[in-house]
């Protein structure tokens, strides 16, 4: 029954980039298991391979060698279309740059994942309104992203990531573009998602202070895991 508790399993994962003639390994044989309901911080200096690892965990990229099991499915062996759906249902992304679509309103941005997953219109609309109220942006529903502050945009992106009720929240430097006060409020939201709602939160950061929120800290160095600390 132990396996059921493991939501993500990286098994001897390599990622090698080709720079012209030279092969540059970004990850070198990473093996790690992430349990369901854990709050994991992946830390490391720039160039340590943490962004590469995040891309692989998020199924945005496939490894050069090794296997990645997401909910017991090997992502290197399923079709692109199934991978997209698995990604959409299982993982909610939060990016440093918020990555909202600038030509769409806040409402349309949050609605979008559900359109890809073919939710019915009524459910999608209700969920969007509800989640935007929850993150305190109900009144900005018809604004464009550029009309909001950085913190507000990041809350929209959190709303978008949560609206399909994914099991994993994958955040890449979520407070990197925010001031410390706003950053703290965002981190509190993550903490609550983990503590109260039982989400698995995986956060990539170079900020050791943020890593303190996490239960498990994975430190990368030169494409390999240096340490794994659990509280």
């Amino acid at each position: 029954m132990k396996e059921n508790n493991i939501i993500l399993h990286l098994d001897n994962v390599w990622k090698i980039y080709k720079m012209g003639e030279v092969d540059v390994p970004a990850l070198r044989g990473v093996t790690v298991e992430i349990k369901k309901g854990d709050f994991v911080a992946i830390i490391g200096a720039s160039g340590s391979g943490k962004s590469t690892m995040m891309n692989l965990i998020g199924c945005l990229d496939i490894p050069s060698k090794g296997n990645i099991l997401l909910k017991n499915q090997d992502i290197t062996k399923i079709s692109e279309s199934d991978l997209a759906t698995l990604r959409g249902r299982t993982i909610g992304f939060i990016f440093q740059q918020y990555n909202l679509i600038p030509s769409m309103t806040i409402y349309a941005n949050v609605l979008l994942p559900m359109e890809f997953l073919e939710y019915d219109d009524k459910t999608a609309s209700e969920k969007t309104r509800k989640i935007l109220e929850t993150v305190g942006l109900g009144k900005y529903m018809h604004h464009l992203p550029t009309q909001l502050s950085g913190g507000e945009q990041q809350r929209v992106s959190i709303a978008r990531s949560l609206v399909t009720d994914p099991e994993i929240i994958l955040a890449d430097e979520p407070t990197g573009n925010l001031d410390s006060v706003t950053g703290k409020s965002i981190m509190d939201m993550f903490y609550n998602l983990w503590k109260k709602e039982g989400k698995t939160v995986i956060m990539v950061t170079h900020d050791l202070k943020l890593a303190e929120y996490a239960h498990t800290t994975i430190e990368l160095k030169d494409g390999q895991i240096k340490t794994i600390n659990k509280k």
Partner: protein
Amino acid sequence: MKLIKCLKHAFGMVLHSKVRSWLTILGIVIGVASVVAIMSIGGSMQDTMTEQLGGLGGDILTLTAGFSRGMSMFGMGDGEGPEGGGSTATDEEPVLDRTDVQALRAIPDIEAFDTQISGSVEVSYLGKSGSVRLTGVDQKVWSRVTTSEIGEGRMLDSADQNVIVIGGKLAESYFDKPIGLNQMVTIEENVFRVVGILDDTSTNIYMPIQMAYQMLDDKENGIYDSIVIKVKDEEKLNETIGKIETKLMMIRHVTEKTKDFSISSSKQMQETRSEMMSSMNSFLIAIAAVSLIVGAVGVANSMFTSVLEKTKEIGIMKSIGARNKDILSIFLFNAALIGLVGGFLGVIFGTILSAMLPALMGETSMLRGGTFVSVNSIIIALSVSVIIGIIAGFVPAYQASKLKPVDALRYE
């Protein structure tokens, strides 16, 4: 994603598109508009022609002397040319004269015929003058044989002498002031009264043939330029032509080879004109189609740029669950919509253009029924432009759908 949602997003992309997209659309608009306008004008010209043909009933024949004149539009008749003069007044050139008239009288299949001469004359009215074509007609039969219709006044009568019937354009706008009924017009220093104005756009003058002999210096009394024949039974047109030819060949002492006259039916002429018109039309449409192809290249170019511009958005969409085929659908719909919007605007501009062109061209005699854009040409124009959009947009859309999410997200 459901297709209807893809369509919605594609529509949003067109609505939010920048000037560039509108310029792309403009490319399609110009192509479609020119094709539509040319199709409509060509169609209307052919309709007018068919109508004229219907009005003629196809029962009118024109007999002229000389072989090459009536048989070829480009004067490329029989190289040997006419030999001998038959029953002619001069030996050099074949002509039509009273002998031929008498021969025609003996053919029972002919209902009536009108002997005509024509030439250029100086006309003046209220101090202004100009050169127009004068046709002398046999006023006793002219009104039965002619295809022209009277607009105001009356046709020529058997008792008429110093009177004329004039073309609609000559009456309306040839001179500074319009010529009305019963006005006096000077032709070669003789004064004539206008008794009728034709419902057409010609500048021709018609007068009794005896008067015309006096007006046209080089014409000899009893020699005709042409004889317009109305046959009794249109169904037996070719048979009648055969009879006339046999008879005339006998009278004029010529054989099939040395034939020195020609008979053209208005039906043949209309058909030749119609053929020329349609090949002219195809040529113009081909030129217009080139601009449509240029428009298509514009769509492809714009789509490639659009994919580049939206690379990051494609990455975002993929990270939140978009499949390759969702992206492909959105971009294909976008390209198709650009085509559709371009096609739609093109049809509108094409319609306006086709309505305005006759006026701009000045020559409206071929478009008397006015131009119209047929439902068919609208459907063709719209579907062609959508198809062009899809074809031009396919490669960029396919590229967009194949972007790796990680690369797309990294794109700035």
